[in-house]
């Protein structure tokens, strides 16, 4: 089961605020194949999150082409993007973003409830499986506030996995964790990758970037080669 999941060509993103244009992305080319583990790094403000949000269909590009699983998705409407996001994408956020009034199980079930026509029993089964996968099944009925940061992030990973997405997108998943908990989450992602998951992770920690099999460097809205990056950084 191999092939290209994500194909991005000449992607641009311009933000207009108070008559100021911010060119967050200026001509990004990127391909991610099924089963790949890609780490994205670069200095703060270079466009990592922006790129990830476009890949995750949270935002639309200003220009360029984006093909997800062979389907052109750059200019879909809100409803279609939501549907595809729900089926193809699993998000892991820096600040976990679990919903405080929902239990662990309900949080994990949430993306499945947005999927039409999935029976409750099947949802329960998937919730159970993904929580077991991240070793959090015993905390099913707890609320996020009753968990440590590391545990919360593991639940978030389970939530991302529950819908069996084509790709997991993670934006600095260890940013809010201490190093020990950070390591544990990294280890979990690595295991998932070994089991076949496709992952695209943003991090500026070189140690964690090294976990990935491919590293991409972003600089000023463009993908640059590693050597080139060092040179550019030296110039600054």
């Amino acid at each position, binding site marked *: 089961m191999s092939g290209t999941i994500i194909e991005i060509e000449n992607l641009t993103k311009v933000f207009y605020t108070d008559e100021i244009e911010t060119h967050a992305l200026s001509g990004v080319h990127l391909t991610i194949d099924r089963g790949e583990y890609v780490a994205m790094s670069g200095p703060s403000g270079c466009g990592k999150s922006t790129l990830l949000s476009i890949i995750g269909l949270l935002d639309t590009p200003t220009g360029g082409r984006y093909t997800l699983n062979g389907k052109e998705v750059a200019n879909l409407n809100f409803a279609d993007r939501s549907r595809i*996001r729900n089926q193809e994408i699993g998000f892991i956020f820096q600040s976990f973003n679990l919903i405080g*009034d929902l239990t662990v199980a309900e949080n994990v079930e949430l993306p499945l409830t947005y999927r039409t026509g999935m029976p409750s029993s099947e949802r329960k089964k998937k919730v159970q499986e993904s929580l077991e996968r991240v070793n959090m099944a015993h905390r099913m009925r707890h609320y996020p506030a009753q968990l440590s940061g590391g545990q919360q992030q593991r639940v978030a990973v389970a939530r991302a996995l529950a819908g069996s997405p084509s790709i997991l997108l993670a934006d600095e998943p260890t940013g809010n964790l201490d190093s020990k908990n950070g390591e544990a989450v990294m280890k979990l992602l690595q295991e998932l990758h070994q089991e076949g998951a496709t992952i695209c992770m943003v991090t500026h920690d070189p140690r964690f970037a090294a976990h990935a099999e491919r590293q991409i460097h972003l600089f000023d809205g463009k993908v640059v080669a590693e050597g080139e990056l060092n040179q550019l950084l030296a110039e600054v």
Partner: protein
Amino acid sequence: MFANCIQDFRYSLRQFRKSPGFAFTAIAVLALGLGANVAVFTLIDGILLRSLPYAHPDRLVAINAPSANGFTMLLNYSNLKQLSDAMGSRTQTGVMLDQSRASVVGPGGRLQVEQETVSSDLMTVLGAQPQIGRSFRPEENEPGREHVLLIGDDVWRRLFNQDPQVVGKSLLVKGRSYTIIGVMPKEFSFPFGGEKQVWSPATIGPQARSAMAGPKQVWGTLFARLPEGVTAASLEADLNRVQAQIAKEVPDSEIPLKLEVTNYQQSLNHQARKPLLLLYMVVFGIWALACLNVTSLMLVRAIGRSREMAVRSALGASRSRLLQQSIVESLLLSIAGSVLGLLTGQLVLKVLWHQIERNLPLTNEVHLEWRVVVSLIMLTCITALLTGIVPALRAARRSVQEDLHGVNSTASASHTRMREGLVIAQLALTLVFLVGAGLFLRTISALRQVPLGFGQQNVLTGGVIVNPTMDAADSDEESAHGLNLVQSAYLPLLDRLRAIPGVRVAALSSVLPMRSEFAVSLAMTLDHKKTAYAQNPTADGRLATAGLVDALGIPMMRGRFFAEEDSSTAPVVVVINEAFANKYFAGQNPVGHTVSMGKGRFADARIVGVIANMKQTDVTKPTKPEMYFCLAQIEPGTPLYGIAKAFMQVAIRASVPADALRAQFDKALHDVAPDATTTDVETIHEAVEDSFGSQTLTSRLLEGFALLALVIASVGLYGLLSFTVAQRTREIAVRFALGAQQASILQMVLRRAQVLMVAGLACGTTLAWFAVKLTQGYIYGVQSHDAATFASVIGVLAAACFVAAWMPARHAAAIEPVVALRSE
């Protein structure tokens, strides 16, 4: 501490400038809540709480004889004198005998005044001294010495331009010359609340002094000042004992047996007590609603600023300091709200003044007083405390740690629950108001649908007091002079009215429907059948001219109404109404039967017609038997001439809008009787609307308040949902990131609103179920637990909730999913 306060004030002002929407909403809501209170409290102060301008007003009592049907009967002077003697010399007493209007002329022009004829000792009982001149002397009730006059301050100003030399001047009142002996102080009035009053001693001759029956009696009301140690109740017991004794000594007497001693002030305002307290409860509810609403607004801000608070307390600000800041802020809002509320309240009174005046006593004395202002200041402080403390305590209780870290971004559940509770309470209160307003709307429409029995189109009505140049007591003298008001004033007036272009019919009657009336109960015999006095047929006695049925559009059931040939020389004719016919001529044709009243021509009056029933003073009451006499056949010495002389009313049906005729009516009247005065010139439609009286007033007020409550509660719900949505922006973005559709987010917010609404409606319905008990006795034509009213009110509130929830729901659905990725 003081410097702190100043600093807090400045800080608060800066905060308001930063969020004008919040400040505006809070101030507006408080202004409405406080303004409603000011309006009602102004009324309560003026009507119930004001102390009367007499010495020790709490000891001043009125002695009344209540009749079985709710009226107050007058006692004859002889009777009053005996009662007063029985009270002993420690108790001062005085009598008020007659009250009439007169049109008088002085250096300041023409003025309509109210003449009170009193016993000479009355001013002493009241403890009142003139500001200029002297009071009455004891002998000034004797015939021939009674032509002295005390005038009110306003009369002095307007009629005499405040002439300091007024004492000794004379004034012509109803054709008699009076010598002015003094000017009463500015705040004085008696009966209390009257305007443009003048007082003169009643003529009490030796016969009047002792007459217990017959035509020489004079009538009055007794006032007394309770001495130390005597209560109204003990005096009442004593007087009732004495009265029983008196009644025993006068054979065959009609003197009332039951006497009632009430504090004078209470006797004036007791019928206003219940409606005013009901109103006060309503505005108290509005105020509570406003407080709930502003508290929840403040809570939003407290939470929004909790991080700032946390920083401040981390920097060492004490909890009480933070509390102070919050209270200063709510105090500023409350002060602004109360100033605006004061204006709103006065405006409300102005707008509703017509209804208020018609339905509540003592309204002349209703002004904005210092007591109202003081109570407003107190209420403002309470408001500030209530709306400031809760949010401050809540904000202070939040953990500083948590807020500084800001990791846990979901709102604290207890905050949300509290705010939801506030919104539910607001919705519940609103429902109660809406139910009240609904019931009164139904009442008014039920009242309007009652068939009146007369037409309302283009009919102008007005009372006429001719103010004959002779006094009422001397009817003998009058007939000797050959003066007959019917011939000299009323019939000429009718001719002039009929000549006005556009007038189709003009008629006179002593009583017109829905207008204040002199009820005169007549006892008579029918067809000369002798019965015991107590079993004699009785009816409301009325006078009318030809044309009355046409002017009012009353159908004739049988026979005819009065015509021009029913003159003073023709046989006496009467017309009865259906109620009379049904009661005394069941199953017969009354036309042709005879009615006897007294002797002479009136012993053989013939019934010539039966008119359909029409509503009398109250559309909710059944029509009583009426008997009409023809005005043209009335002259001095005949029954009912006294009524004709006192008061007649005009009904004019026109082919033009009735309103346009007021000026011509006035002119025609003054052409035939220059001294005549008019009362309540209004269209019959206005008279009908006014007769709904307190129901209209309550309905208007409740409708206004209910609408207000609806707006406040909707704003409350809107505010809560907007705030929740703003607070949950990130959560909603995460839901989008996980694949939520816009419709499901829309639904999520609306479902929250629905839960609050259902809870609010449930609480409100329960509350209203009990609260409607208060409306009993006020509503008509609708049950207090009327299902249709409850259902439609619930529908209205639900619709308002939906509208209030829709916008925040739309906002929620428009949140960008990408927000989920942003780190805070």
